[in-house]
């Protein structure tokens, strides 16, 4: 059987979903029988490759760079998976949406008594005013809620995707827990 090309993308998340994926422990070896990981924070590839079968995205869209990458990923991916609450609902990064990014940055970096209070502004992506779930930008094929989704949930999902079962995945996951 030809191995599927799997990518995982880390946007404005905390990496918890990727940690949860690693938490599948030795079952990851079972998965490697079915997948080649072609792009991920867990491997050293700089450019998002062409013709990817499945991309799991962690984190919401928080910057123009995220938006650009997401559009590219969608074009090159057959099956897009929103992995975890941040990608699904915006979750914790979206808590800044109440007051907007500039107000949040001011509050965090200058709102307290610091030695050199300043908002970092160079060599980092400029934040969008709102952190938004990925399905607000591109069509998403599968949503896995959870903060983070458990290793079991992620393993079950990936196993089901190998079998081509995209509609009937029994996900015990819910928002938050």
């Amino acid at each position, binding site marked *: 059987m030809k191995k599927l090309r799997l990518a995982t993308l880390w946007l404005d998340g905390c990496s918890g979903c990727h940690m949860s994926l690693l938490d599948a422990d030795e079952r990851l070896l079972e998965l490697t029988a079915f997948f080649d990981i072609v792009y991920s924070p867990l491997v050293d590839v700089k450019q998002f490759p062409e013709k990817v079968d499945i991309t799991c995205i962690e984190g919401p869209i928080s910057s123009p760079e995220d938006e650009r990458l997401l559009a590219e990923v969608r074009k090159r991916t057959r099956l897009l998976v*929103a992995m975890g*609450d941040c990608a*699904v*609902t*915006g*979750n*914790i990064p*979206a*808590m800044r*949406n*109440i*007051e907007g990014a500039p107000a949040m940055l001011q509050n965090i970096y200058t709102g307290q008594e610091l030695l050199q209070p300043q908002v970092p502004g160079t060599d980092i992506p400029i934040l969008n005013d*709102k952190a938004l*779930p990925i*399905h*607000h930008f591109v069509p*998403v094929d599968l*949503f*896995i*809620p959870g*903060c983070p989704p458990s290793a079991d949930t992620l393993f079950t999902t990936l196993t089901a995707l190998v079998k081509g079962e995209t509609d009937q995945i029994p*996900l015990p*996951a*819910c*928002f*938050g*827990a």
Partner: protein
Amino acid sequence: MTTPILTLTIDGKEVSGLATETILQVARENGFSIPTLCWLEGLTSVGSCRLCMVELRGSTALHPACITLIQEGMTVTTSSERLLRYRRAIIELLFSERNHACAVCVVNGHCELQSLAQQLGLDHISFPGLYPALPVDASHSRFVMDHNRCILCTRCVRVCSEIEGAHTWDVKDRGIRSRIVADLDTPWGDSTTCTGCGKCVHVCPTGALFEKGKSVAEMFKKPPALPYLKATRAQEV
């Protein structure tokens, strides 16, 4: 005068109930599950959350089961694709209207809104979030009111008024601007009517009302036995 007993059909099964009973009561007595959020046994039903809507034969409209009395020969459908679609939409609208970040909520794992979303198979919110700027009232010495999590079910208002008899809580404004307020919109801590009984906290289905100083693992709601409290109060009077 005795209350007449009426017969009706719920999801194809013939059942009977007292003429004073609602569709929800008869359905639950007969093992049918209808989701609810604003309804709580022992409190007046207000039919505000609309989750318990059912289909009645001969009517194109949907009817809230918690405030619709049964009628002779009524034919009720409690679950259908259409009802499920509407129920999901209600939950999605509740999530999008305020700021519900389950991961950092003190009742994460014990929340009725969260579990209903899971039960109804909701895996994302299709409506855009409104992200309103809402306050958190931590002025009370033991409890906190977080408007970000409030779904305006008014269980707190009703339990305070009908069971505790204090009527500290009420609702101000209308529609999307509605807010739960204590004592004519004063900080909860300054309330002169609040007895600190905590019933509102424990009937709240979400993390809108919670106890101070409790962690996620500790802050699960213990709804008081309202029908029992009501009955014993009636005896005293």
